[in-house]
């Protein structure tokens, strides 16, 4: 019996194309078109058109019409539009693959959770939970190798720059335009949160490590204490959003956790950055390097921007889409659904509130 090929509509693709590329690469999915609203700014249409041409599919400036001819949507818009586009698709009965972060606003996440439930559609929010190192961590934990989990910590740093360093703006220089800076980032690889709304590192990337913690702890975060600062980048300083943060986590099942996160500059690590998990169990402990397995390649005249240690055996994209196909085929849940991503957004929101007030804050459940 042949398996269903699911038809995917890309709803706006204004930043890196890893999400629609991952969908297109899986044999159970086929991209049918890119679509967006007609009143979007010109740069949005340019990005959408370019991706459509590269993928050999049409670009439609009419979301409602495009939604009629697909099984699912792939939302790769600016972060502040993720939920709005996803809700429109859910209400049309379409399944959802949504880029991270789900949304900077918890109210929009709540609305999406409701739309997904009411329309009985599946939702996968993009994550890195199926990287080989995370699969190893999960297997070790599930095998009982360290007993019951007592504490879980994640250090998550991207050693990328993000435009001029903090302190480089002259007294008469205007603040850096956030959107223009993010659009430039495609050229130099210092990509961050594309959109009109300035987002800190905790809001942009925090979903990745918090999803690790959520998957491994199997219990929601209830209370946080956090510190945030702008330590590295002028664009973040100009818009008063963090590029370095620490978060203490209290988890409902009695575990404690913590997160250190930052966009710490390209000079701060020889590769993409130090990303590690430290797990304490009742019978043992586990230290996981998220980048491994990797191979090392060193050569004369090697470009300075080339990572010398390269990840191998990374099937995260394929496995996420396989997870989504399984969810559609067998009416199962996805590895990170709308509710899970919403709970992570609640943790991020509480962390930002904690950093602002200097006190521990309960998450909104």
């Amino acid at each position, binding site marked *: 019996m042949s398996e269903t090929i699911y038809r995917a509509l890309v709803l706006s693709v204004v930043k890196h194309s890893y999400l629609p590329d991952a969908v297109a690469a899986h044999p159970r999915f086929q991209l049918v078109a890119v679509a967006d609203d007609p009143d979007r700014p010109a740069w949005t249409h340019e990005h959408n058109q370019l991706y459509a041409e590269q993928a050999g599919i049409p670009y439609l400036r009419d979301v409602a019409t495009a939604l009629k001819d697909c099984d699912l949507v792939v939302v790769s818009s600016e972060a502040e539009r993720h939920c709005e586009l996803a809700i429109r698709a859910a209400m049309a009965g379409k399944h959802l693959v949504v880029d991270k972060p789900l949304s900077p606003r918890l109210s929009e996440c709540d609305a999406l959770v409701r739309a997904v439930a009411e329309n009985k559609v599946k939702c996968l929010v993009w994550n890195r939970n199926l990287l080989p190192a995370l699969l190893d961590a999960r297997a070790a934990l599930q095998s009982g190798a360290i007993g019951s989990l007592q504490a879980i910590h994640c250090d998550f740093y991207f050693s990328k720059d993000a435009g001029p360093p903090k302190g480089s703006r002259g007294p008469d220089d205007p603040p850096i335009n956030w959107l223009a800076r993010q659009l430039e980032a495609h050229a130099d690889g210092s990509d961050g949160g594309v959109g009109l709304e300035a987002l800190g590192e905790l809001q942009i990337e925090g979903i990745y490590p918090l999803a690790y913690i959520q998957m491994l702890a199997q219990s929601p975060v209830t209370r946080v204490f956090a510190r945030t600062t702008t330590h590295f980048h002028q664009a973040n300083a100009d818009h008063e959003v963090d590029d*370095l943060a620490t978060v203490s986590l209290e988890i409902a099942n009695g575990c*404690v956790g913590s997160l250190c996160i930052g966009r*710490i500059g390209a000079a701060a690590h020889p590769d993409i950055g130090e990303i590690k998990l430290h797990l*304490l169990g009742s019978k043992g402990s586990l*230290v996981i390097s998220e980048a491994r397995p990797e191979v090392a390649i060193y050569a004369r005249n090697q470009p300075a921007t080339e990572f010398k240690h390269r990840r191998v055996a990374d099937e995260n994209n394929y496995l996420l889409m396989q997870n989504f196909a399984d969810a559609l085929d067998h009416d199962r849940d996805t590895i990170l659904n709308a509710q899970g991503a919403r709970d992570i957004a609640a943790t991020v929101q509480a962390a930002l509130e904690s950093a602002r007030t200097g006190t521990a804050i309960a998450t909104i459940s």
Partner: protein
Amino acid sequence: MIQIKLDLEPERQAPYAAALARLRDVEVTTGRGHALITTKVGESSLPTLLDQPEITPPELLSSLAGASIMPAHPWRFSPSIHPLEESRSSGQLGEAGLLRVHHWLIANTAPEHIAFSQVDLAHWFFGAPPTHTHGLSRANYLQVHLGFAKGGMALLDLATNRPGPDNYYSLHLIGSRGAAYSDDHRNAHLLFGEEGPRALIHQGNQLLAMQTMLTEFLAGIREKRPWSVRLQDTIDALATVKEVAHV
């Protein structure tokens, strides 16, 4: 030749004697000597290295202002820490932004006990005690979360009574221009035995730390200058530990 008297319990005396034996122009004496290493305070006017200052009541330490005492903070002199601090203090890393520590001990000791050294490192790297503190305690576990002026932060994960054969230590210090990593995971060897592979972690830091600390103690005496560690550093670290651990 500087003669040093060791007024310590035998188990504490042995590592000091071993470290002193590696140094020039110094010898251990049973007489009065020129300097003293002890855990007792206020009993001598000699230049004194106060061993385990964290077990001395802070009020007593405060009463000793002006005394010729260097508190023993061996972690500051550890081979895995010293290069990081040199890099930081030379400006190579830029302004310190974040200190992260994972420190797990197999010893069944109170986590507050090991918190002292790590909190002191945080104070040292950021140049002052914190402006914000937060602690999470569980059995054999303490998480210390500190905020410093100018946005600096430290997050310390401290566990004791851990299963397994070895302690584990991981530290990184992230500055505005670079980062430094000191990490047992990165430095571990692999042993393949009958029960499967296990990591081998080098445990040679303690004696070298003590040797470097004693070098500073002796240099302060010879050069008639203040030591790089002050009693106030001990008092500050104890105060922060008390605040986060509620002890």
